[in-house]
């Protein structure tokens, strides 16, 4: 996902001379090419995320468009108040890109996990929250958030995330979930890096004679209300899947629509329980521990 992000970013920086990239000493060698090509619009600001967001706001107040990049917890929670006051309350076009969504940095321990970031970013008025499902969605999402008039948070994985949109993707739009398969039985809705798992779940359900629907809900805020109403009209149940706490993420956003609209549909939420991970573990080890593999989820649907 990071490679897709970088590629799109250089295209955007080439097209828009006001676009700046600030990183908080993250991404060893990752930005070498960008730095070379756009030396005056790239800065490693040091390990000072709070300052990074403030500086981005000051630039944006003077007609610059800014991307702030770092590992998820440090560019969202460390500097939460700067994002709230400097970016959101002033509605400035700054994009925060967090790398290492969910359990990407599994073995590094809970300081580096990003399991509550969607929740806190969702809570901010004016914030757009985007968690692309695969590298193709990342590419489209980067371009889309850079066209917004206000702040945005783009949550991406790192490397090795499988392609789901293998034949490319037409008509990507923020706030509009992507329906990869239409069904009439259970709607499997994922956000971020759980999309390949969601796809696998659908294959298994299909093999078992069910008729599942598959949706990549890349934008968690604003959530695609219209699509959910449509889904509830056809499917008996919705399953939400996210590598994030069950509090405040995709499942919560979907449940809110179901409640607000009085939809007659059952919602089953899969995510990380309300706890800190207490042991070392790779992403796959921890997904299994929390019941987030395709096999485990299918068994509980």
């Amino acid at each position: 996902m990071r490679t897709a992000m970088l590629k799109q970013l250089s295209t955007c920086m080439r097209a828009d001379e006001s676009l700046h990239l600030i990183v908080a000493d993250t991404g060893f060698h990752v930005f070498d090419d960008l730095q070379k090509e756009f030396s005056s619009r790239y800065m490693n600001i040091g390990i000072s995320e709070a300052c990074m967001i403030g500086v981005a706001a000051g630039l944006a107040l003077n007609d610059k468009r800014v991307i702030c990049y770092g590992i998820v917890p440090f560019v969202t929670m460390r500097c939460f108040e700067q994002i709230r006051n400097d970016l959101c309350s002033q509605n400035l076009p700054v994009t925060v890109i967090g790398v290492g969504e969910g359990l990407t940095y599994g073995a590094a321990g809970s300081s580096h996990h990003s399991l509550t970031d969607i929740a806190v970013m969702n809570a901010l008025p004016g914030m757009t929250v985007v968690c692309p499902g695969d590298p193709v969605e990342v590419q489209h999402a980067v371009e889309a958030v850079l066209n917004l008039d206000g702040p945005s948070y783009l949550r991406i994985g790192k490397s090795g995330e499988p392609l789901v949109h293998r034949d490319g993707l037409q008509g990507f739009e923020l706030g509009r979930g992507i329906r990869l398969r239409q069904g009439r039985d259970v709607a499997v809705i994922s956000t971020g890096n759980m999309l390949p798992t969601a796809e696998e779940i659908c294959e298994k359900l299909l093999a078992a004679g069910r008729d599942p629907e598959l949706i990549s809900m890349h934008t968690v805020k604003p959530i695609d209300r219209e699509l959910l109403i449509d889904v509830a009209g056809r499917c008996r149940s919705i399953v939400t899947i996210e590598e994030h706490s069950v509090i405040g993420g995709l499942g919560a956003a979907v449940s809110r629509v179901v409640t607000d609209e009085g939809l007659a549909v059952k919602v089953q939420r899969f995510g990380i329980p309300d706890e800190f991970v207490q042991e070392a573990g790779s992403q796959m080890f921890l997904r299994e521990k929390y019941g987030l593999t395709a096999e485990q989820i299918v068994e509980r649907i």
Partner: protein
Amino acid sequence: MMDSIESAARQIRKDVLRMHQTGSNAGGAMSSADILAVLYFDTMNLESPDDPKRDRFVMSKGHCVSSLYSVLAQKGFIERDRLAEYCVDGKLLMGHPTRGGVPGIEASSGSLGHGLPMAVGMAWAAQKDKLGWRTFVLMGDGECQEGSVWEGAAVAARLALDNLIVIVDANNLQGYGRCEDILPINTLAAKFRSFGWSTMEVDGHDCAQISGALKAVPFEVSKPSAIIAKTVKGKGVREMEDSLGWHYFSVPKEKLQDFCDELE
């Protein structure tokens, strides 16, 4: 010239006293009065709040915004009548600077330690585009306990922002007492210097001294400048001066006239 600046400062104090018949922070607003008067009526190039070439000002000690509202009224950026809207239900003159509803407010602030990083971004924008305008930031001395202030200070020096000027309203009081007792960082000038800034210390109530310092910026080429202005909280009204209570008290109706008379 100094006469008119001093009279603008007197007007700030009178307006602040009137505005603070409810609400906190009259003392801090009065300690900033002379600094603001010099900035807006002597130093800054600022004819209109929309002029792209204007010097920028960030009120990082946002809780003292009433003094800034007075300045904006004196500049004619807002109507004088609007000062009566300070902290009034449904009106736009909020207790901390909020960009959008009040012409002349460059950035929303109020949570301490946010102003300097934003000002660094502004000054950097001007430096990048080779624009001549400067960015001024007013901070409190208690505010300098926030870590983000020093992140901003380090970045400003690293970017060689000699178009950035910090003024610290150093009244040696904060929410619960003397800054030097609560969390001593009372060597502010030395701290800024060690972060790569050049500094000057002035009497924050001597308009000629403040003006001289602000005319001399940047003190060194390629370095941001910090002016540590020694001030007295509540300056101008004896009962309020150097008194912690006036971080919180409102001005009682029956004392307003006496306080204003004392300023003459």
